[in-house]
């Protein structure tokens, strides 16, 4: 189905192999209302804290972690929907962190970074038909109108396996899988270089999920897009992603090739996470259990490991010294004082 479509992604050759290079990015949200008279509030949610990572051209990066650990915030930062509190976001050769999110809407690079949102239904304006939704970015970002626009819309829809007769429907008249396809079609319409997918299949049945994942793979092949893929489902991440980033309470705790990370996690949190994933082949009686809840992301202790207190192998050291993200063999990194002691 991709053969019929002219596919000209626009990565200028000179830009080098790294598509995205973000360094020491943090995002903090003030909590409590900054009332008119109450002055500035001093409590901050450290949603994303000192995160650095890179994404190579054509690579698919998985992002996993507990709910509320900052995955969405991070991808919103790199999609330039919100402004980072600090840090740099380099897209190709361009530094984007200095451009306010407000102005980025009209930036020439806007079309090159697109997002597919978690809840496809909610991310489509209920007053738009599928065609309107897909056309919107094309019209706004590339100034297309009339027949060209329609043609492009249909092209994108076809690419995503969306029957053209569904284009006239409103979101509530579409099934979950179809909505997900509309969301993807809308995002790939402007032919982005980077597609951020924030839990695109979380609300779907397995069977629909499979087709969406396979669609993503085929789009990646035909359009040469790089993905940042956020998911709760480690099995899916493993299937789709080249590399995986594990976050915990706003910080990266482990990075590495997906298979390696899941087969032999270095960080105790990753270990607990992997152990908790249910498997078709039955329960493991000895599986590691992470009891308790994460700490509050509000004003966390800068000198303590965020996992301290819940960590099965933590020591007093973890309470006073924040572990750095260290490099390990096989292109892996982990932020734990005791990562070496990981069982093989």
């Amino acid at each position, binding site marked *: 189905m991709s053969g019929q479509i002219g596919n000209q992604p626009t990565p200028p050759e000179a830009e080098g192999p790294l598509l995205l290079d973000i360094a020491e990015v943090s995002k903090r949200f003030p909590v409590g209302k900054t009332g008119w008279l109450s002055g500035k509030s001093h409590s901050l949610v450290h949603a994303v804290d000192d995160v650095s990572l890179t994404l190579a051209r054509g690579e698919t990066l998985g992002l996993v972690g507990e709910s509320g650990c900052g995955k969405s915030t991070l991808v919103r930062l790199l999609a330039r929907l919100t402004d980072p509190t600090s840090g740099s976001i380099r897209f190709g050769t361009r530094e984007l962190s200095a451009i306010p999110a407000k102005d980025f809407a009209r930036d020439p690079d806007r079309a090159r970074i697109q997002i597919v949102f978690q809840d496809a239904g909610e991310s489509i304006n209920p*007053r738009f038909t599928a065609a309107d939704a897909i056309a919107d*970015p094309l019209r*706004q970002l590339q100034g297309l109108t009339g027949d060209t626009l329609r043609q492009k819309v249909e092209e994108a829809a076809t690419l995503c396996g969306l029957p053209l007769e569904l284009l006239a429907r409103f979101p509530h008249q579409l099934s979950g899988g179809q909505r997900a396809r509309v969301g993807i079609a809308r995002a790939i319409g402007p032919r982005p270089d980077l597609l951020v997918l924030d839990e695109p299949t979380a609300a779907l049945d397995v069977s629909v999920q499979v087709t969406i994942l396979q669609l993503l793979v085929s789009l990646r092949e035909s359009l040469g897009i790089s993905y940042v893929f956020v998911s709760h489902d480690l099995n899916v991440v493993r299937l789709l992603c080249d590399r995986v980033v594990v976050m915990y309470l706003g910080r990266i705790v482990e990075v590495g090739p997906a298979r390696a990370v899941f087969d032999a996690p270095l960080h105790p949190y990753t270990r607990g996470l992997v152990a908790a994933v249910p498997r078709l082949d039955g329960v493991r009686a000895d599986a590691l259990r992470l009891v308790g809840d994460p700490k509050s992301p509000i004003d966390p202790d800068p000198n303590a490991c965020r996992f301290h207190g819940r960590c099965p192998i933590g020591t007093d050291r973890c309470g006073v010294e924040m572990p750095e993200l260290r490099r390990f063999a096989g292109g892996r990194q982990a932020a734990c004082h005791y990562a070496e002691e990981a069982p093989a």
Partner: protein
Amino acid sequence: MSDTALGHARHVVTENPVTGFALALFILFVLAAIFGPSLVPYDPLASDTANALQAPSGQHWFGTDQIGRDIFSRVVVATRLDLGIAAASVALVFAFGGFAGLVSGFFGGWVDQVIGRVSDTIMAFPLFVLAMAIVAALGNTVPNIVLATGIINFPLYVRVARAETVQRREAGFVDAARIAGHRDMGVLLGQVAPNIMPIMVVQMSLTMGYAILNAAGLSFIGLGVRAPTPEWGIMVAEGASFIVSGEWWVALFPGAMLMTAVFCFNLLGDGLRDIVDPRRRT
């Protein structure tokens, strides 16, 4: 499941006979407003003191008033003005209040603060007295009554529009629109505004009734539309003094008409609310 809004409306109406009834009434009122003046049997302004205060009869269906004017004709002809006042004031406050609420909810920050203060200030006034003061200060002309009614409804619209906007400010489709290259105003007017429209329409329907009542109250105080223009509020206010003396029809018919109109708008508003209520969508 229905495919169109119209179809949806149809089944809500059939499911809810009261709303259907209100809709029928509404259509009647609109017809009266449009064609009323050319249909009525008497000149609504023509006095006939020889036939003053006649009880309802075959000749004068609703009787006659103090100076012998035909109440039926006056009541029917008044529809246009009353609906006009209500519609105009509601349209006014819809435009300004709705937009202010939209902006306030969407941008937050100081814009929100300023708009919030303005509507707080209005809310802190006893609203009817504020309307009176505005009309008294600017003169009791129809535009001023419209304006006053609009102003006192302002906070309500700001509140509703703001709440709805805040709910949608973080919605996925707003982000999606940003990603699609819309800037703030584009998102606000192109994406958020159409989505809060249904609930605003409900609001409008409910405040239409209130606007009519408000105009009637002003008339009672003596600050309403100028004589001899027929207007329900004035007619009720004038007729009110005849209730005790037994000429009940002078106040009753305009009162009933007023009540029916307000009633109709309120029921319609409730019905519309059910129609736009997402929980009721299948």
